[in-house]
Structures are given as C-alpha cells and as structure tokens.
C-alpha cells in the first residue's frame, strides 16, 4: 500500500467485507489446523492433543475472520502513522453504500443495530428449533426421537444459544440503533468498537454451531466441572464462544456506558434522560463485572481440558465449587442483564400508550439501581444444594429476597403509569400486559425458590426450568417483541402489520402459558431437569408442555413471516406514528447518516403527557430546537 496507491484505491480496507473475513478466517483456521496436527505432540502420553488442535483451530478462525473483515484496520493504520482520514471514516460509517454496508465492518450505529436484530432473530430461530427437538423427545416418557447423547447436546446448545440471543436482544438492536438517537447523539462514543462487538459475535456463532458436529455440549449450558472435563470436543466450542462473547460484551458495555454518560444532548440532564437509557446502562454495567467471571471460568476450563491443569479437579487440589462460584457470579447478574433492558423498553412504551407520564421516575431509577446493585450479591442461591457453604445459605436467602423490593418498585411504576391513563391497545401495549402477567408468575415462583427449604425440594427440577422461562422468555423475550413492535417503524421505516402480528403474538402467549403450566406441574411432581426420558407419572404434564411448545412455534413462525413481510412491503411509516416524545421519533424516516443535522437541545423529560396544551403532536416540537 504505497501512498500513491492509497490515494487511488483508498487502501485495502475498501475491499474488506464479511466474505473476505470468512475466506481469511477459513484460510487461517485450516493453516493452523494443519500446523497443529503436524507439530503438536500426540499419542497415548498426550491425551490433550485433540482439544489442543480444536482450540487452536477455532481461535485461528476467529482471529483470521476479524482480520479479514477489517476489524484491525483502524489500529493498524494508527500504528503505521496513517490514521484514518475523514473520508475513510465516512466510508467506514457506510456513507452512500446501500445494502453492502450491512455486510462489512460498518461503524454507523444504525447499521450495527440492524445487524444485531438480524443476528438475534437467527439465534432465536436456531434456539427455538432446538427447543422443539427437546419438546418432541419429551412428548412421551420413553421416546426414541433422538438418542440421549443428542438430547443432552441439544439441551446444552439450546441453553447457551438462547442465553446469548437474549443477552443481545435488547441492548444489541435497540441499545445500538435507538439509544444514541434517543439521547441526541450522532453516533456511539466508539463507533469502531461498536462494529467490533457485533463482528466478534459473528465470528463466535459458527464456532458455537460447530459444537453438535464435535460431539455436542453435553453438559447443559451451565457446563459444570468435572462433567465438562469429560465432555467431547463440542465443549471446546462452548469455551471459545464464551471467551469471544465476553470480549464482545465488555466492548459493547464500555461503549454504551460511555455514550450514555458523555454524549447526551444539551439540556438532557439525568432527570430528563429517558428511562430506557438507565436500564440499558444498568444492564451493560452489570455485564462489565459479570462476564469476565464467565470468561475466567471458561479459560480455566479450557486449561483443564487442553493443558492438563486442575483448576476444577478435586483429586489434584482443584474444586468444582470454584467453577460453580465463578459461573454463578456471572450467572445471576446475567439474568438481570437480560431482563432489565426488556423491562425498561416497556417502561418507555407504557407512558406513550397510556398517554400519561411515567409514574414516579425516581422509583423507576431506584428500582433499576437496586436490582443492579443486589444482582451481584445473590449468586450462591443457585448453590443452596451444592454443599459448598451451608452456612451462607441464610445470607444469600436474605439478599435474594431483598431484591423483590426494587423489583416491586418496577411493578409499581408500570401500574402507576397505567392508572387513569387513556390506554391505546396496540401490539407494544399488549406486550406490556403480557409481561406484567408473566413476570408476576416468574417473580412469585422465584420467591418460593429463594427460600432455602423450598429450594431443597424444587432445585434441579422442571419447576426451576419453568420459573426461569417465565422470567427470561415470558418477561424478557416478550418485552423484546413489544420493543420490536414499538421501534419497528423507526428502524425499518415501515409499519408492522398488526392485523397478523397481534394474533401471532397472542398465539405465542397462549402456547407459552400452556407449555410452562405443564412444566410447573411435572416439576412439582418431581421430574428432574435435563432428562431424556422420565417416569410415566409425568406423562400428562409433558404432553401438555409439548403441545404448548408447538403452539409457540406456530405463532413464532407467523410472527417471523409478518416481520419479514412488513419490513419489505409494509405501509410506509410516518416519523412519529405513536405520538412519542423521545428524540428518536423527532428525526425523519429514513434517518440521515449522523441522525441530527443540528444537535438537539432538550428542555424537558419525554413524558409530558396529560397536559392538553402540550399533547398536540405539533406542539412538542417547541421543546426541541432542531
């Protein structure tokens, strides 16, 4: 790249995209695989050879892909003393690039948001299909639809895919696309890190999806040691995926936090900042201490498997409880990483569709802060029955039960906002009602499980599975669907066809209640989790669950088709179809590259409902001097 060539072709970075990334990733992957097989010691004395080859191949693929997609162009050019010019940056942001920008390392936050949305939908589709496999196997007590090994593999893969999908499902699409516009910023604080966080996940997904071909993740998503040390090489895929994902979420977390703290528009004081921003920041903020724990737990696990270390090997001075602690230090904050952004997205929806201000903004913030703070102090309630520290059960029961107070505050904000509102029943608002119901059930069953003696009976049973599906799916995923319905017109420029989407949503909700009613039932009767076959006693409950699951799948398919159809052919959306007051609805459709031609100035919070003079849709323009 001579300086002359640089001026003409604008550098090699102009030629990089996802396809060159895949090509270079495969090239580096195969090369390292060849070298590893040739030079690494093998034979009976070297039991770790297989895992070493697989881990090095996967890391090489990921590194090769990131190089090939152009993730390191910025730092490379900076090192070479040829920092990116304004023109380069505009090119990276995808200026006038059309559809091609979705397939390369584009820094525009709106492109990254859409990429995240598609990725979330793909992962939910794969995870949902796996769930159907699991439910089909469980439709009869001694079914032979899939064998035990495949069953265990699907349970693990379903778990971890859904965890990754639900972690990114709100802060990914909406945190990236909507949040910067909502606070009046032209882009994220670190646009290149933003693209990096997405393409890291893109690099990790093929690794994760390779797991079933490498013997599967036979440990469930918890991957407890020493079961994980016994597991086939599919476990290496899990380990590498988590390590990459942890880097991605750290990068995204730092980016979203910095953006929200430093880039809010003039006049957007903290009490004028939309509540969604608080929730998104709290979510990624919790992820910042949580995911390094996960990463460390998997690095140790990988060292145990591939280098013969003994972090978790009790016969050699390690401890399985070390793994359990590291894992749940991530694992419990992580459920709030999933839940909080979905709930606060709904808190953004409730005032608009009730035409009423958010009830007690301060209580909402206190609820978010309370949940965030307590979420890192409750992890060992997953370990009441582990025998790790029986004397700590009481303190962890205390912290776990206290978390019901800030959670209760969020319920108060919901019903307080609905109180005497003028309720506009559209799909986003229907999602709010669905989430209130589901989260109530998820929350109350969580109270039983927080109680040590009750947990001794219910831990490890299907009751727990039903409980966390009510929180993560019933509240989290349902909230995300509501948020998608709400921001769809802004993100795609078209209206979602609610004539089909609403019935599809209701079918999914009905199926959801049926599925997990059956699962609560068999859990109470004593069916353990993650079993491929079960006692005849549990036959009816499982049949109910499987029928419900097919109903969800049917509804989800209709929903997916409707979303795709509306995205392509839907009615063109006005700039502000809901009469919302947050800034993202003030920018035109399609949104210009840097969102605002003139930086907006904010003079009030976005919940100025209930005052007839301000309500007029034209009038609130006064508050924003564009």
């Amino acid at each position: 790249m001579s300086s002359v060539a640089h001026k003409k072709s604008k550098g090699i970075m102009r030629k990089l995209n996802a396809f060159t990334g895949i090509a270079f990733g495969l090239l580096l992957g195969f090369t390292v695989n060849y070298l590893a097989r040739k030079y690494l010691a093998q034979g009976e004395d070297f039991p770790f050879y297989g895992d070493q080859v697989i881990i090095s191949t996967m890391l090489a693929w990921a590194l090769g892909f990131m190089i090939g997609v152009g993730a390191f162009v910025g730092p490379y050019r900076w090192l070479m003393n040829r920092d990116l010019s304004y023109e380069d940056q505009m090119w990276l942001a995808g200026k006038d690039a059309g559809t091609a920008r979705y397939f390369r390392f584009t820094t525009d936050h709106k492109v990254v948001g859409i990429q995240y949305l598609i990725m979330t939908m793909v992962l939910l589709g794969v995870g949902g299909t796996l769930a159907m496999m699991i439910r089909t196997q469980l439709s009869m007590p001694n079914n032979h639809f899939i064998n035990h090994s495949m069953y265990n593999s699907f349970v693990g893969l379903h778990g971890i895919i859904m965890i990754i999908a639900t972690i990114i499902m709100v802060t990914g699409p909406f945190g990236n696309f909507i949040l910067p516009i909502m606070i009046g910023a032209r882009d994220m604080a670190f646009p290149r890190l933003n693209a990096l966080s997405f393409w890291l996940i893109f690099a990790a997904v093929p690794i994760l999806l390779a797991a079933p071909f490498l013997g599967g993740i036979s440990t469930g998503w918890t991957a407890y040691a020493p079961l994980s040390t016994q597991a086939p090489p599919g476990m290496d895929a899990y380990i590498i995926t988590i390590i990459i994902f942890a880097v991605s979420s750290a990068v995204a977390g730092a980016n979203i936090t910095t953006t929200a703290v430093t880039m809010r528009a003039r006049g957007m004081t903290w009490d004028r900042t939309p509540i969604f921003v608080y929730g998104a920041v709290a979510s990624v903020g919790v992820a910042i201490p949580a995911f390094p724990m996960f990463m460390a737990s998997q690095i140790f696990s990988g060292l145990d498997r591939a280098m013969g270390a003994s972090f978790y090997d009790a016969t050699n001075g390690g401890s399985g409880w070390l793994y359990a602690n590291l894992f749940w230090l991530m694992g419990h904050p992580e459920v709030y990483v999933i839940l909080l952004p979905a709930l606060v997205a709904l808190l953004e929806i409730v005032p608009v569709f009730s035409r009423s201000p958010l009830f007690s903004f301060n209580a909402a913030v206190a609820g978010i802060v309370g949940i965030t703070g307590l979420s890192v102090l409750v992890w060992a309630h997953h370990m009441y029955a582990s025998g790790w520290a029986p004397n700590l059960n009481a303190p962890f029961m205390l912290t776990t039960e206290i978390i019901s107070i800030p959670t209760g505050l969020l319920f108060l904000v919901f019903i307080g906002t609905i109180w005497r509102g003028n309720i506009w029943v559209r799909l986003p608002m229907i999602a709010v009602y669905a989430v209130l119901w589901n989260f109530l059930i998820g929350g109350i069953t969580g109270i039983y499980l927080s109680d040590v003696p009750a947990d001794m009976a219910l831990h490890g049973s299907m009751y727990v599975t039903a409980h966390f599906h009510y929180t993560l799916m019933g509240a989290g995923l349902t909230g995300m669907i509501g948020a998608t319905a709400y921001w769809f017109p802004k993100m795609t420029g078209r209206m979602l066809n609610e004539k089909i989407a609403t019935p599809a949503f209701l079918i999914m909700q009905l199926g959801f209640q049926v599925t997990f009613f059956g699962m609560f039932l068999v859990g109470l009767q004593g069916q353990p989790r993650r079993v491929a076959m079960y006692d005849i006693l549990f036959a009816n409950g499982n049949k109910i669950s499987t029928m419900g699951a097919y109903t969800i799948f049917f509804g989800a398919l209709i929903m997916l088709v409707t979303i795709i159809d509306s995205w392509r052919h839907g009615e063109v959306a006005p700039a502000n179809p809901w009469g919302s007051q947050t800034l993202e609805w003030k920018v035109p459709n399609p949104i210009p590259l840097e969102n605002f031609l003139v930086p907006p100035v904010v003079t009030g919070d976005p919940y100025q409902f209930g005052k007839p003079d301000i309500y007029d849709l034209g009038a609130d323009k006064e508050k924003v001097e564009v």
Partner: protein
Amino acid sequence: MSTKERTRGSIGEFIRRPYVRHIFVIWVFVTIAIALFAPVQSRLMGNSASLEMDVVKETMTIFTFWSAPVAGLVISIALYSLFGWRSKGDAAPTEDGSPMRSNSKVVVGWLVGSSILCVMLLVWGLAAMSESHNGSDPAEVHTVNVVGNQWVWNFDYKDDGNFSTPVLYLPVDEPVMFNITSVDVIHSFWIVEMGVKMDANPHETTHMRVTPTELGVFNIRCAELCGLNHSAMFTKVHVVSKSDYKAWVDSMKGSAQ
C-alpha cells in the same frame, strides 16, 4: 381553603371514586382466587413423606397467601385498565390520560408494604431452616454414606452394620444423616417425596439430614445433569417400621458375611 379542596385526595373521597370501587371488587375476587389456589401446588407435590417436606409444603402455601394481595392488586388494575380506561378504536387517542407524575404516599406505602412482606418471607425462611436442623440426640441419628457413580447410587451402611446396597432402607420416624460424595462428576441426591436434596461432589463430602414420617416406597432421582444416562439414575427408598428395619439390617449383615 374550601371544603371541596380539602376532601379531594382524602381517603374518603378516594374510595368513593367509581373506578376505585370497581378495581376494589376485582381485587377482592382475584385475591380470593389466588388464595384458593394457594394449596394447589402443595397438593400437586404429592403426600409428604418427611418432616422436611411438611415444611416445604407449608412454605409454598403460605408464600402464595402472602403474595395474593399484591399480585391481586397488579392484576386488578391491569384488568380494569383494559376495559375502564381503554381508548376507543385503533387510532391514536385524541386525549391524554392522567397527568399524575408521582404520589409519594403511594410510593412510600408500596415500599413499606413490600419491605414488610420481604421481612416476613425472611423470618419464615430462617425459622423453617432452623426447624429442619433441630434434631434429637445425635446418638440416635442413623448414618448412611451415599456414593454417586455414573449412573447408579450406592448406599454404605457403617453404623448399622458394614454393608452396601443400591436400594435404600430407612426406619420410620428416626432422623438419618447422609454423608454424600461422588466418584466421578457432580450428582445430586434427591429424595423426591421427602423434599430434600444435596449434591454429591467428587472428593468432597456433603451432609443432608431427613426424618421420614411415612411408611412406603419413595423415589430417589439424580437432580444434576451427570452425563449420558442422567435420566436413568434413579432408585427407591423403602421406609419401613423399626422392627422391619432391624430385620432387614440383620439379613444384609448376614449376606455381607
């Protein structure tokens, strides 16, 4: 200040509002419905076979009772709003709802209420925990060593004779202490009808105590994913009378020699 202004916002005025009365009626119905549902979960758990399971079933029922009024409040307001406060038609509402931004009495009341409930949960939980640890004289406690092994359970009787068995026998109404370990991966020793479980960790010994109260045959299942045949890792526990237990121990000692 006129009389009218003074009464507005007072409790008397508040409960005279028509929607408050409607919500109150729905709240009463929903709360009663949840309260009636409270014993259902406990019943679905089957008959209790131990002191510990009695505590669990009581806990499930009482927690449902306590949460009934709060859950009822959320459900009744949400339900009422769907009918009473609904904007007509699919088009955007032309009028706004209430401009209320907060109400410190409500927020403080809610906080106090949920804190009281939280303390009740905690006190109940601590009491229940100490109840399941209260025992008789340690000398009267039977000891059984439990070993998890992919994918079978083994029970070593040390005090009552030196023998092993894959099927557990326990005397009724006498406390038992299990010392639990594993030879390979983590298992979880779960006596379903007795409402107790404890993980079996390799190279560690964990302890679990239970007092069977019912004669009969009950289920032991593994509650922690432990590999390929996790779902097949189950066995039975026979709870028998004290004399039958003695006879069984004698026969086992005979066959062990």
